[in-house]
């Protein structure tokens, strides 16, 4: 078990302790050169870059967890945050990609955030040093050119089943908790968003168009076109299939069939 795996294991054991993450902006940065709004955008990207990895690796990671600002030092360009210890492996993984700049294996949300951090450093000729505890773990320098190989995507109609967890936003959308635990953002029209609001916390089936990453089969985006309640009726579903196709299945000798299709 390497360090990253060990940390993930610790997270899965319900670790609730905190670590310290320090961000030090160097290269001539000073408060008058960084506006408050710009700093806000920067910190948002910083948080997003880490939480996207944490949520990918552990679907139970709360989207409410935030970095807590502990201190501002060294001319207001050294900021220390208290972070859940469970985030440390995500930070280590992220910083390990700074050496090469290849972020192909990181989640899309993380890549977007990292690209914006990289652009900010390039535009300003600043460097962002990352320290976990007191240990330097990586830097985003102006020379660093982040890149990733965008996987080809396949668009097709799809139907998903899950529970609506949140609805709304500037653009009409809702978030669906899928059976496997993933939280999927679904774009939709305003009418459908209103309908999703009525079904908040209910189990629904959603029809629409999905863009799947062809390498990982992950859903990169989902555009919903219809929602219906999907109260679970497992027994009824099996009864329905038995009623319609039971006679065809009756003709199947299970042991022989399995032996033939799987070659056992």
């Amino acid at each position, binding site marked *: 078990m390497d360090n990253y795996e060990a940390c993930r294991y610790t997270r899965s054991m319900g670790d609730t302790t905190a670590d310290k993450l320090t961000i030090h902006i160097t290269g001539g940065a000073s408060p008058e050169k960084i506006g408050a709004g710009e700093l806000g955008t920067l910190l948002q990207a910083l948080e997003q870059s880490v939480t996207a990895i944490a949520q990918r690796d552990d679907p139970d990671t709360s989207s409410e967890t935030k970095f807590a600002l502990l201190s501002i030092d060294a001319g207001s360009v050294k900021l220390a945050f208290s972070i859940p210890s469970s985030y440390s492996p995500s930070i280590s993984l992220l910083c390990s990609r700074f050496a090469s700049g290849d972020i192909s294996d990181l989640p899309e949300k993380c890549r977007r955030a990292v690209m914006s951090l990289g652009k900010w450093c390039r535009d300003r000729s600043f460097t962002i040093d990352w320290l976990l505890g007191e240990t330097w773990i990586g830097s985003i320098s102006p020379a660093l050119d982040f890149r990733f190989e965008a996987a080809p995507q396949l668009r097709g109609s799809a139907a998903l089943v899950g529970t609506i967890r949140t609805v709304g936003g500037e653009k009409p959308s809702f978030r669906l908790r899928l*059976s496997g635990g993933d939280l999927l953002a679904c774009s939709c029209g305003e009418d459908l968003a209103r309908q999703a609001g009525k079904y908040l916390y209910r189990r629904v089936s959603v029809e629409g168009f999905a863009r799947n990453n062809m390498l990982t089969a992950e859903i990169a985006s989902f555009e919903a076109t219809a929602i219906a309640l999907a109260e679970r009726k497992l027994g009824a579903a099996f009864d329905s299939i*038995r009623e319609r196709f039971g006679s065809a*299945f009756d003709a199947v000798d299970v042991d022989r069939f*399995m032996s*033939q*299709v799987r070659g056992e």
Partner: protein
Amino acid sequence: MAELVLLDTMICIWAFKSEATPGQEDKIRQAQAFITSLDEEGVEVGISAVTLCELMVALSDENRLEGGSARDSARQVVKADCQIAGTAISCGASVLYTEDAQLLKMAAPFISTKPMPPIGQQELEL
């Protein structure tokens, strides 16, 4: 979030049947009672794409495979077993239920893998 379990092909076919192949009568009762118990427990149930394909093959007249031959058997088994176990793991299933002895053995180190519980013990097993 409800627990998710994955059902393998044999269990689905037995649950869909109404007439048993001689000697497999108990399996139908067991599978149907198992589905009922899963329903009552509120467990999420999934099947893999491999199982979906196999069910469609089972329904297809020309693929009833009477007297068919095993094709490149070792390779087919490895592919199907890995795909089903991989689906269960990647979907976050807590248990893979299968009556396939080879799949039981192969998947066990990676995910909780069990045969259908006997009738009467199904609630206990869940």
